[in-house]
Structure formats: C-alpha cells, structure tokens
C-alpha cells in the first residue's frame, strides 16, 4: 500500500532523508521511530505531498506521489504533528468543510459528524471557534476529519501528543480498528510503549537512513539485546531504541 524506493530529501547541503526504501502492506500499522531531526516528519510530508522528494519514488495505493499526486492524495489522510486549523471556524464547521472538500456525501456528513464529535467529547464545543480549542482538542478534531473521509492510508505524525489518557486510549483503539478494516497506518511517534503495543512492524530512522526494520523481536536481535535483562525484567522497545541510536551512552553523562 505504501512503497518507497530510494526516497531522498535534501535541504541545501543537508540530507534529511537518505535513500529510504520501505514496503508496507495493506492493513499494517507501521511505526516510524527515531531521534529528533532524524527525518521522520520530512518523510511524512513527502508522502502527503507537502514536500517534494529530491530523488527516488514513493507510491501510495499504487499511485506515485509526484506524478499522480491527486490520485494518491484522494486515498491518504494526514494528521500533522502541529494541528493548525482555521482559527475562525467552529469545530463542526471545520468537519463540514473537510467533508465538502473531499466529496463526502452530505447525508453521510449529517449522520457522522455529530457522532464523531460525540465520540471525541467535542459536542459541547462544536459551536466554538477553533482559536479557543486546546492543542489536544484540535488534534482530536483533525483525527475526526480523517475518519470522516474513509481513507485507505493514514499518516499520523505524533498523534498522541497533547491527548488526555481517555482520548489517547480512544485513538489507540481507532488505529487498531482502522488496521482491522484494511487501512494502512504509518505512524511517527516517540511514545515507544504505544508503538510496541500497536505496531506490526517498526522502522528506526537515524540521520535520514533506516537503522533497523522489522518486528520488535527483529529489532531486539539487531540490537544484540536479550529477551530479559540482568535483573530479569523484560527488555523494552525503549532499551532497544536507545541501544541502536546511542541514547544509552548519552544517559551515562548524567
């Protein structure tokens, strides 16, 4: 469903994403991990057409994101890390606006928008301007707008940042449901615990290149970590991540 081949992005002399190749099948939840500045957000932006690749190719649902960008965009939905939305629209207006733009039938909008607002605890805020929404509320609204469109691919950039525990749980369940119904989810996150529980496969990006790719077990083997540490505790994805990206050494400075 998502296929990247030698995808590269340069900003002047800086190579933000370097020869990235991935193949993510339909219905998979793919976790994209990496330290700050590794190139995760740039990859998501390239996939969603917000940034043009310098070289290489990317297919979404079989459509090239550069030459067939409109077809690709019809099938994918994005939740950016900073959910900037029009401050002078109300929450409900934003959802109708997105519904209209993506050609969601009006009968479906009338039925589903109140349901999503209810689901995300936004009903009593639906008539308020978005400038008065908190970060988490805007995040939930953008996720609701994604669900409204029935996309085939969902790109999530830090979807759980700013969400309260109840909403975070809801979003986790939504991601699982999307996957079960055949939607491919590409998720950048720093919440390793969630990534470990949710994602079928994980990729660790480091300085623009893939450092490790596979299931949690694959990554553990790649890092040379045992299943349990010396104290008998289970080795977590966080331990594996820090071993692979060098964060464990940094901690020794403390």
């Amino acid at each position, binding site marked *: 469903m998502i296929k990247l081949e030698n995808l590269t992005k340069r900003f002047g002399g800086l190579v933000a994403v370097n020869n990235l190749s991935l193949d993510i099948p339909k219905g998979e939840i793919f976790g994209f991990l990496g330290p700050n500045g590794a190139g995760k957000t740039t990859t998501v932006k390239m996939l969603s057409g917000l940034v*043009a690749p310098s070289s290489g190719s990317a297919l979404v649902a079989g459509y090239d994101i550069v030459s067939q960008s409109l077809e690709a965009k*019809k099938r994918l939905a994005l939740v950016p890390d900073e959910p900037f939305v029009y401050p002078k629209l109300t929450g409900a207006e934003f959802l109708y606006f997105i519904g209209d733009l993506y050609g969601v039938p*009006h009968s479906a909008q009338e039925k589903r928008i109140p349901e999503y607002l209810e689901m995300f605890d936004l009903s009593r805020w639906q008539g308020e301007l978005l400038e008065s929404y908190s970060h988490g509320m805007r995040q939930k609204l953008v996720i609701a707008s994604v669900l409204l469109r029935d996309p085939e691919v969902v790109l999530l950039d830090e979807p759980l940042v700013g969400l309260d525990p109840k909403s975070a749980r809801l979003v986790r369940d939504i991601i699982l449901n999307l996957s079960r119904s055949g939607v491919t989810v590409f998720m950048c996150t720093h919440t390793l615990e969630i990534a470990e529980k949710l994602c079928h496969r994980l990729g660790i990006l480091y300085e623009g290149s893939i450092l490790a790719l596979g299931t949690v077990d694959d990554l553990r083997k790649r890092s040379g970590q045992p299943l349990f540490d010396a104290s008998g505790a289970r080795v977590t994805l966080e331990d594996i991540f820090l071993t692979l990206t060098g964060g464990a050494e940094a901690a020794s400075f403390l």
Partner: protein
Amino acid sequence: MIWLLLKRRALSAFNGLVSMKLWEFFIRLFFTLAGVAILVGLYYWFARVLRYLDGVQTIGPLLPWKLTSMALLITFSMVAISGLIAAMTTLYYSYDLKFLFSSPIPVRTLFLDKTIETAVYSSWTLGLVMVPYIIALGQVKGGTMLFYIYFLALMVPFILLGAAFGIMLSLALMYFFPTSRTRDAVWILGSLSLTFVYMMIRFVQPEKLSRPDTLEVVANYLNFLQAPTAPYMPSWWISRAMMGFLYGQYDKFLQYSALLFGSVIAAYGAMAYFSKWVYQRGFSGAQEGFRYGVKRAVPWTVERWLLFKGWLKGPEWTLLWKDRKLALRDVRYWSQLALIFAIVAVYLFSIRQLPVEGAAMKSLISFVNILVAGFVVASLGLRFTFPAISMEGRSLWVIKSLPMGMSRLMTEKFMLLSVPSMLIGVVLVGWSNLMLGADLFITALSTVTIIVVSLVCCCMGIGLGAVFPKFHVENIHQIESSAGGFIYMACCLAYLAAVLALEAYPVKMHFMDIIGHARWDMRWLSLCIGGLVALSAAAIVVPWKMGLKAIETYEV
C-alpha cells in the same frame, strides 16, 4: 535583565544580517534606496509648499508654523493610534510571550522590553517622514545646524509620548476588559480612528490655509493662525520650543523642551511602575479563549443549502464559503472596510473640489482619472488581494494535502476578490465621470478600462502573492510591507502607465474629432488595441503562472 533581553534582539538582528544571502542584500539595498528616493521627493514637495506659504504677504511667516503644528498634531495622533494597535499584538499576543512569562524575568522588565518594541515598531516610519519636513522647514526659516539637531532631538520624546498614549490606553483597556475580545474592539476603534483622521485631513481643506478669502471674515483667519493648535498636546510644545529657538526666545525653548522630556520620563516611569499589577492581569485575560456560543454549529444559509444540494459543485465553492466566514469573523479584515469607505469618500470629494472649467478639460481629467482610480484599486489590492494566499497561514497544510490542483485555490481567491475590486473601480470612475460631466466616449473608455485594470490587478495580486507568500506572520501588515508587496505595487503602476500610454492615441483623436481635425489612422488604432489586449493578457497570465508554480512547489 533588560540588557539580556535587548541583547537577544541585537543577536537576532546580527544573525539575520550575517546569514543574509546576496540576493536578499540587494533587495534590501533596493528598498533602502527607494525609501531614500521617496524621502528626497517628500523634502522637495514640503520645501515647495512651505516656501510658498512663507511668501504669502503679511501673514506669510505665521503660515509654516501653523502648518507645522497641524502636521505634528496629526503625526502625534497617528503614532498614538498605531501604538495602541501595535501594543495589542506585541504586549499581549507575541509568539515569545508565553516563554518570557514562564521565565524568571520580572514583569516590569518584560513590560519594558515589549514597550520598547511597541514604541519603535509603531513610530519609526512616521518619525522618518517628519525628517524631510524638518529639513525643509529649517531651510525656509533659515535654521542653523543647531536648529536641526535640537528639532530632531526633541522629536524623540515627542514620538515616544505618542506611542506612550497608545500603550497606556491598551494597558487600561486590557486591565478593565481582560479578554481576547478587547483586541477585536481595539481593531475596530483603531480602524475607525484612522478613517476619521484621514477624512478630517481632507475635509478641513488644508488648501484654504493659503486662501484667506475662503473664510468669511479675515479676522477669523488671523485668529485661527495666531491661536495655538491644541495647546495641551506635545505637538504644540515641540512647535513652540522650536519657534522659541529660532526667534531667540530661549526661555520658551527650554520650558517646552523640559516639558517634553519631563513628560516622557513621567509617562514611561509611571507605566513601568504600574505594569507589575496592570500588565500581568491584562496578559492573563488575553490568554482566555472567547466563547463564541453559536446556537447551531453550522448555521443554515442559502450558500450552505446550495452546497448541500450539490448545486455549487467543486472545492472552489467550499473554499469560498470558508473564506467568507473567516473574513466576516476576523475583525482585522472587515474593520478595514471603514478605511475603504473613507478612501472612496475622500476621492470623490477631491474630484468635486477640482477647479476644472470647460467640457474638453473635464473629459481630459476623466481620462487621467483612470490612473488615479487604478492606483486606488491597486492599493486596495495590496491590502486584500496580495495577502489572500498568505492568509491561509499555518493551515496551508489542509489545502496542500487536498486532492486538488493549486489553480483551484487561486481561482477561488479570484472569485472572492475580483467583484468587490471591480465594483470599487467602477464606482470611483463612474461617479467621477458623472461629477465632471465627461462625454460618452471618455465615459465608455474609462469604464471599460477600469474593469479590465481591476481584473488584471486582482490576478497580479493573487499571482504575486503566491510568488512571495508569508504564511508565518503575526499581522497582515508584515505581508503588505514585504518585498513582494512592493513588487506588486510597482508592477501595477507600470501596467497602469502602459495602459494610459496606449490609450493616449484614441483619446487624442477623440479630442481632435471634437474640434473637427481628426484623421484616424486605423493602423495606429489597431496597434493600440492590440497592444492593450496583449499587455493585459500578459499581465494576467505571467504572474498567475508564476504564482501557480510557486504555490505548487511550496514546501509546508
């Protein structure tokens, strides 16, 4: 601590300078030179006016001072209004405020830092415009070098006092009405005040200053000249101080200079002292969201109903619905309508006041009027059309991730802005023609021309606005005053000049026709018409295509 805050500003400015690319340096250099050229032009104009006034028999020596105190009063009012509007952003809504307030910085220090920013931001352009005036006044009145030095030195507290008025008013407003809605109210009041000042400047008919016969009794005129202009305002103090210096009344000079410096110290001292209590409360209130309280989340309107029924198909209509909603709810946008009204009123008033005699002369003025009306349309475009793409702001990701070509976004902006732009142009030209009694040929020519000019300026505004977008600005003025805004205005003016030059031939033949000496050369006529069509087509297509390419490749 204040030095540390000022140091961060100096460092930011320094880093901006050293990281400047060569092309950026040349653009800035070009703007600086253009600014200097404008100031030199202003100097010659001021000198001419002041010399003329000074030369009027008997009352001449009084006139330049009267004009000076009036000009200073207007400058003071403008700085005060500008200070109020700027303070509402810099003191309460700057991006860095949350970080600064959460840092261990005393509120007074923080206030002082933001006050310096507000005072400089709101007054430097107005202060700069006064420099050529002061030089011209000194030349006319025979001022020495010390005259210029003292006058410019006194301008500093004078301008700072103007800004202090605005800042104090913002503090008081936010203290007593600590809510985000206060900013909207200030925007409306600010726009209305600027509109009022602008209309007053024109409607008081300053040309009467040199024509005593226009006042009913000459004694009234002399009284008007001798009376102080707003004696309790700093504008009078600085005028009186400099008059005193020039005429050797040094006690007056010292007295009014001391009043200016004393007032500025007292004003800023008082603000700094009270800021600890007043500023914190206002800032806290400004962070609170406003409950809009719409009864129905998406009110049913004819437009919404048409969208619902599918009769308005395509994303352009949905975007149009969104933009209309945003414009009506954003006070900064619609409060400017008062200024448009003022521009139109002053424009038509000025046309009515023109001392033009004879049918041919009136028609000729109507023809030249196209240039002035076109300039007004282009200037309004700088405020509304040019920033249209940039106004998508940080929500641009929504549009860029749509399965939609960016040409549809530009088309929607054109749908939204072309009709009002054209209407204003037609009203200006049509009404002027009516008042001037222009003949049918000139009326038809000027009406068609202004329609085409309005549409071309609209396309240029949208296209160039996409070539030079500014999505991350704190206020719309940063978009208008950018390099792109300057290029847009230059392109519009060049286009207008070319249109008038191409229309000169048929207009000349028309006037020859009236006196019975016309010999129409169809080759020349075809060349003019062909030239107009080609020029207008190029003025639409080239910026549009450039803008389209720029926005399609723009990386969010």
